[in-house]
């Protein structure tokens, strides 16, 4: 009874809250007011139900926290998914199956599907790159798309002016982005995390403003067209063939990214990143060079964005500043957050879900961003570790127990 009363109050409050925006619609030029009374009903019902769910979920979360505090360490018990993930033989089998599926994809499905898959793969690489900065090193970067833009524009411009090919620019674009990361990162990495967020956000916007206004350099808002597609020893390819070709390059890039980030994660510098994320002061006290470690995370994250930016320009053959808005940065960030910060598999899954779902559910594409936003909030409150949580490496000392049983 008390719950129902509470939910009723919540839904009344939200009806009041959403009244002017959801119900009234004014058309000042025709002097018309449109009253959409039905919306009240929907809002009321939805919030009534949601408030129950919300309260239940909050109570469960609290119960779990209490249990964790009182010593019943639930986190030690790996969940069923995690147990599956850690099973080595299964893991290899799954990986091989996935690779075969990925390689066969363009032959099974048509060109349109391949094109969609390429853009999803682009986001996979972007997500994995941002995962280094945000997930591992804990540096919130809100202007990540700027590095993507640097890569795309370096290919477009160098190709336009000097006719340089895709394969030459691929590493160059990455390195240029990397340089931008270092130049930008150098003065601001001493700052606390939230300042960094706002400066990177500002940087992302500056890049866009510059690209739009500096017409002599970047051809302004109209962008650059007729960028060369990647070549294969001078072979002429039709659209379908070159899509397939780009798809395979993309698969190669994704595999390379996965291998490199997985190796990085458990390397000396990867451990340093994670340590820095957890506690800066303790980390510096242990003798980790903070500036260098942060800078390397930042630069490496930027590197992948630059590479995949080159890829993007080669795929679309046309770029303009409108492709590099804050919304893109927000989408990449939500991929990392929803997938699971620090977890490679999580990020891949997150990218696939977030890019492919709206693609196939066209009817809901308007609601895409509002769902992303809501999902980010809900995720942070109820499952901050993401869809697939990052498995912490643990060392267990098994020897003692066995010995004591023997004795």
């Amino acid at each position, binding site marked *: 009874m008390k719950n129902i009363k509470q939910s009723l109050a919540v839904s009344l409050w*939200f009806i*009041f*809250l*959403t009244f*002017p*925006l*959801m119900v*009234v*619609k*004014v*058309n*000042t*030029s025709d*002097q*018309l*007011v449109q009253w959409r009374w039905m919306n009240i009903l929907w809002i009321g019902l939805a919030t009534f139900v949601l408030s129950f769910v919300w309260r239940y979920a*909050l109570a469960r*979360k609290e119960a779990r926290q209490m249990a964790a505090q009182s010593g019943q360490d639930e986190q030690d018990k790996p969940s069923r998914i995690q147990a599956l993930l850690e099973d080595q033989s299964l893991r290899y089998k799954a990986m091989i199956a996935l690779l075969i599926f990925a390689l066969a994809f363009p032959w099974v499905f048509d060109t349109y599907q391949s094109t969609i898959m390429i853009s999803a793969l682009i986001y996979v690489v972007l997500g994995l790159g941002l995962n280094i900065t945000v997930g591992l090193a*804990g540096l*919130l970067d*809100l202007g990540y798309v700027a590095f993507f833009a640097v890569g795309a524009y370096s290919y477009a411009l160098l190709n336009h002016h000097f006719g340089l090919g895709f394969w030459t620019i691929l590493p160059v674009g990455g390195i240029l982005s990397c340089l931008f990361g270092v130049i930008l990162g150098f*003065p*601001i990495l*001493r*700052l606390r*995390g*939230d*300042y960094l*967020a*706002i*400066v990177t*956000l*500002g*940087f992302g*916007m*500056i890049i866009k*403003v*510059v690209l739009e*206004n500096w017409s002599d350099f970047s051809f302004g808002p109209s962008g650059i067209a007729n960028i060369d597609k990647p070549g294969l020893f001078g072979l002429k390819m039709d659209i379908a063939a070159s899509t397939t070709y780009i798809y395979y390059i993309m698969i190669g890039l994704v595999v390379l990214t996965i291998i490199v980030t997985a190796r990085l994660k458990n390397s000396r510098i990867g451990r340093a990143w994670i340590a820095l994320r957890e506690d800066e*002061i*303790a980390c510096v006290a242990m003798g980790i060079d903070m500036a260098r470690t942060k800078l390397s995370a930042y630069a490496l994250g930027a590197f992948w964005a630059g590479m995949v930016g080159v890829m993007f320009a080669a795929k679309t053959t046309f770029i303009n500043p409108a492709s590099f808005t*804050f919304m893109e940065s*927000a989408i990449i*960030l*939500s991929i990392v*957050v929803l997938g699971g910060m620090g977890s490679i598999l999580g990020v891949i899954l997150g990218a696939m879900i977030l890019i492919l779902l709206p693609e196939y559910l066209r009817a809901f594409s*308007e*609601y895409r*961003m*509002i769902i*992303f*936003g*809501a*999902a*980010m*909030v809900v*995720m*942070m*409150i109820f499952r*901050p570790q993401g869809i697939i949580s990052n498995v912490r490496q643990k060392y267990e000392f098994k020897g003692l127990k066995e010995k004591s049983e023997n004795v």
Partner: protein
Amino acid sequence: MEYFIELFLGGLTRGSIYALIALGYTMVYGIIQLINFAHGEIYMIGAFVAYIVCGVLTIYGFHGVSILIIAGLLAIVYSCAYGYTLEKVAYRPLRNAPRLSPLISAIGMSIFLQNYVLLAQTPDFLPFPALIPDFEFMEPIAHIIGSPELVILVTTLVTMIMLTVLIKYTKIGKAMRATQQDMSMARLVGINVDRVISTTFVIGSALAAIGGVLVASYIGQVNFYIGFIAGVKAFTAAVLGGIGSVPGAVLGGLVLGLTESFAAGYISSDYEDVFAFGLLVLILILRPSGILGRATKQKV
């Protein structure tokens, strides 16, 4: 010289709007060390509510100043309600979470609110009626400073004075300062910290709504996206002045407004935003604690 004065007053007007929004950032940051990313959206919602109320009232035959007052008040009420709900839904459950979590939640909320207004209303720019009348006594100096600018400057000044009185001399102001200094200690001496935080959000939202109504009627347009840019600029102003410091936010807002105005007037108006962020980066490198902020040492 006249051009200079014009730019100066224009910058002052712009800066005082930034200051109004920046106060919301700075107050919230001072208490819970969170960049309330959705603050710009609260400002946008204030402007939108004012737009809708104005539209309805005009169509039903109201006139002049009464519209301005009703629309302004309703905008403030709704912004406060949104600010309060925002804190309760998105930030309160994360009070003890790691620092990155509430920040991401705030970004999510900002995206959510933007798209909520986009879907509930329209993606287009809407014409906002000029609510502020032209005063007759302004006639002789109208070519330097118009009536809307004067109204903005006076309103901002009055609001600032009221805020200062509230923080310095009232009980809730005292509680806010106490919470800012040490949250757990404030709780120990019997301050309801949750309520103080809610109040802070409500006050910040009210200031943002005032800014929203003023700016919308000054520029003459509203759109679901106006909150984002304004929010980032206002945050820049807050950092410039030293985040957490109330007079700092005002000073930062004015400095930012003047910089933008002069840079746009004398150099190029295309790169207005670049100057603002350039200033921010410069300040963060040279003086990370801001103009009026105190450098704090991190303690273990």
